[in-house]
């Protein structure tokens, strides 16, 4: 164990992963209660297009992914508001469209040396110092947004119509919330992976909702859950030489599936 912790790349992975886990556990509540799970799938998969665009243009994949994911998130939001559509429908379109663009970008660039699998399923041990700095700056910013407007976000999650009638700026808050979720997804893709990140966003609150009857409880238990599955999954994956992201998600799902019937 001590030997393991002495490696620089393990330390990077642990610090980055822990920060992300805490913020995921917090934000998960809003994603689950506002039925935004599929939107988070859509934003995560847009990252594939973003990474591919970075490869094509020879730019940092972070830069292109941030731009690409934010653009897609805001475009989905705009379509939802303009056409009075729901997130499911619009995300269904963009989910496939951004993957399609990604494939086109990759086929044009013909750079097969790039580790696209690492982005799809995460490569936690490849987290370098620059990645860690990006995580350490962005994740607290995202958490700070949710903390600052916590009361308003809870009110609009609970009863949007009454929140609007009471003068809470629901639309701007919703826009910023989706921007924050998109940022969180982008910075966590290297750790968890495009395909797996949604599970990590949805699992904590889904698990906590089975056991808690107040939103503060759900958020607290959600944070605890995501930290536990991250640490346990990470050490298991190291010990048995398994991919970390996949181990974390599988473990989390197994814990979520533990049968429990709440007494009312």
């Amino acid at each position, binding site marked *: 164990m001590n030997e393991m912790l002495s490696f620089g790349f393990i330390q990077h992975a642990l610090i980055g992963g822990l920060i992300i886990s805490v913020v995921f556990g917090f934000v998960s509540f809003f994603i689950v*209660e506002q039925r935004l799970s599929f939107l988070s799938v859509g934003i995560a998969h847009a990252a594939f297009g973003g990474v591919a665009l970075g490869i094509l243009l020879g730019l940092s994949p972070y830069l292109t992914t941030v731009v690409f994911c934010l653009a897609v998130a805001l475009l989905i939001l705009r379509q939802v508001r303009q056409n009075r559509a729901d997130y499911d429908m619009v995300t269904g379109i963009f989910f496939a469209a951004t993957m399609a663009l990604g494939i086109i970008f990759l086929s044009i660039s013909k750079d097969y040396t790039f580790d696209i699998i690492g982005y799809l399923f995460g490569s936690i041990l490849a987290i370098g110092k620059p990645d860690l700095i990006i995580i350490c700056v962005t994740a607290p910013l995202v958490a700070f947004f949710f903390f*600052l*407007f916590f*009361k*308003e976000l*809870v*009110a609009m*999650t*609970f*009863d949007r*119509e*009454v929140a*609007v*009638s*009471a*003068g*809470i*700026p629901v639309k701007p808050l919703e826009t910023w919330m989706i921007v924050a979720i998109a940022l969180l997804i982008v910075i966590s893709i290297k750790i968890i992976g495009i395909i797996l990140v949604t599970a990590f966003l949805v699992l904590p609150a889904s698990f906590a*909702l089975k056991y*808690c*009857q*107040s*939103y503060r*409880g*759900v958020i607290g238990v959600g944070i605890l859950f995501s930290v536990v599955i991250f640490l346990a999954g990470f050490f298991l994956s190291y010990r048995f030489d398994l991919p970390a992201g996949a181990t974390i998600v599988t473990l989390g799902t197994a814990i979520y599936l533990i049968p429990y019937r709440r007494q*009312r």
Partner: protein
Amino acid sequence: MTEPWIHVHNLTVRYGSKTVLEKVTLDVMPGEMVSIVGPNGGGKTTLLKVILGMKDFNDGQVLVLGKRPGHVKAGELGYLPQVNRHLRDFPIRARDVVLMGRFPRLGLLKRPGPADLKLAAECLEIVGMSGSAEMPMQSLSGGQAQRIFIARALAMEPKVLILDEPSTGLDAVSQEDFYETLMRLRDNRGISILMVSHDIGVVSNYVDKIACLNRHIHYHGRAGDEIPVQVIQEVFGRNIQILVHNKNCVTCRENHRHE
């Protein structure tokens, strides 16, 4: 002369080419309880949304507490939308729901303090739910949940309360209980109440005025006065038989006479 707290004059609202409300005129005075009745699709909810500032209108004048809709001071206008069962799945305790009523007056970034907690407790007491403050909403019945939502609206300290089909899903006893709570609020706090209802028979026992709405306002009068038959037919259609049961119920009076 006192100004009405809700003043609607010649209001017209269209969705595309369809006119939903046409030259609608309605006043709600301070401390008055008014019910709008009418069929589905008659524009009842649209009228409420215009008053709340959530829907634009095409023509006419609307003033709420002397201001244009949407410009009323935060918290002065309490709103209870149609029963939404999904709300009762949310993991939240009754007291926290009531505290949400304080948010508009607190403004952004401020958290509720001891004074807000005290007020929330008072509102719970008014609706007779003090004992359930710590209960999760998931474990409350429909009637109890509805009372919690009224307490949330009260925690805003509103002058005007707007309710959309508030008694849907409540059984007869809970309904009676619910309307009596509303009457107490009107009498003790001088709140004006405007509500929408299907149930012309039940509400006429409690409210001061009734307005029949089906695109136009067909009738606007004191509760208990007999609504002309042709109005009922115009509003609800000719193939419908309406049973109005209130203290002036003709059938009941005749039965008593026979006894």
